[in-house]
């Protein structure tokens, strides 16, 4: 959209800015893809094992994702639980 307005006024965006924009997108994608599925599955199992000590949840409701914010990458994990085991009571 912004490009078309600029074009209306006869100003093409510099090709160097286009290059930079495209690179930022593709490199984000590349980096996210490097965390491969096998690693994510393993992490999923290991996290579930630890969390199962405290919470009750069904394994197939768990969602794990990577996303980017600014210069950092964030691992987001959703573990919807049905019950909290009160660890203090048990001991």
């Amino acid at each position: 959209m912004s490009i078309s307005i600029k074009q209306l006024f006869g100003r093409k965006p510099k090709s160097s800015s286009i290059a930079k924009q495209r690179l930022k997108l593709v490199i984000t994608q590349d980096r996210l893809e490097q965390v491969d599925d096998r690693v994510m599955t393993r992490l999923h199992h290991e996290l579930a094992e630890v969390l199962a000590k405290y919470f009750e949840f069904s394994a197939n409701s768990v969602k794990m994702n990577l996303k980017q914010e600014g210069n950092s990458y964030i691992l987001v994990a959703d573990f919807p639980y049905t019950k909290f085991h009160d660890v203090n009571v048990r001991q």
Partner: protein
Amino acid sequence: MGRVIVVTSGKGGVGKTTSTANLGTALALLDKTVVVVDADVGLRNLDIVMGLESRIVYTSMDVIEKQCELNKALVRDRRVDGLMLLAASQKNNKDDIQPEQMKAICDKLRTTHDFVLIDSPAGIERGFRNASAGADEAIIVTTPDVSAIRDADRIIGLLQNARIEPINLVLNRFSAELVGNGSMMDQDDVLDILNIDLIGVVPEDSGVITSTNRGIPLVYEDGSPGAQAYMRIARRLTGQRIPIPDFAQKGLLNNIMNWFKKKK
């Protein structure tokens, strides 16, 4: 103990061999003892770029196969004190060498020299792994174009996983004119994308091509912009603080001048 630095890039043809030859020579000119190691087994070029091709007798492969002592395999560059080359075998391929074997060679060389610079082959496979196995630092060479920068980022990830640091960037074949008219990314753009430290910018310089033709590294030609850039990088490698000139600023100035010329 000397420093082992791998010169690498991901994408081919961006100036790794040129940079290794010139930085190795420049460091020797600054009175450091240096070995440049060609890790491009099967496609060796560092010898011819440095003009030492006629004097190669042994290669790193002969050292690994115990056909010859490491010291005997080093070719002395007679033009400057303290500069040696360890050539790569041309009749073998990259799978004939193990990363541990390269590491053993680097560990030995660092006991007798201030700097060991390793000229890595392009790519992210075995050749790159061999080249980086013995390194504690890296220099990434890239040109300011999309494919070279994308591949550089991939290599940076691999180096970080291998705990190789610092990773310093050499931005090669920079054209102030193209940056000035908006058709080439400048150093700030590249750093913004790659997020590593810049150790130098080498301009596009036809002297690189003629010096390669002759087999005399460009740093011997004091006046050329490429030689000056490589000398500055070598000084920074030795810990001297030397600001990186703003080539883009000069480009802008050039463009303004050209605009006035055209108007006349």
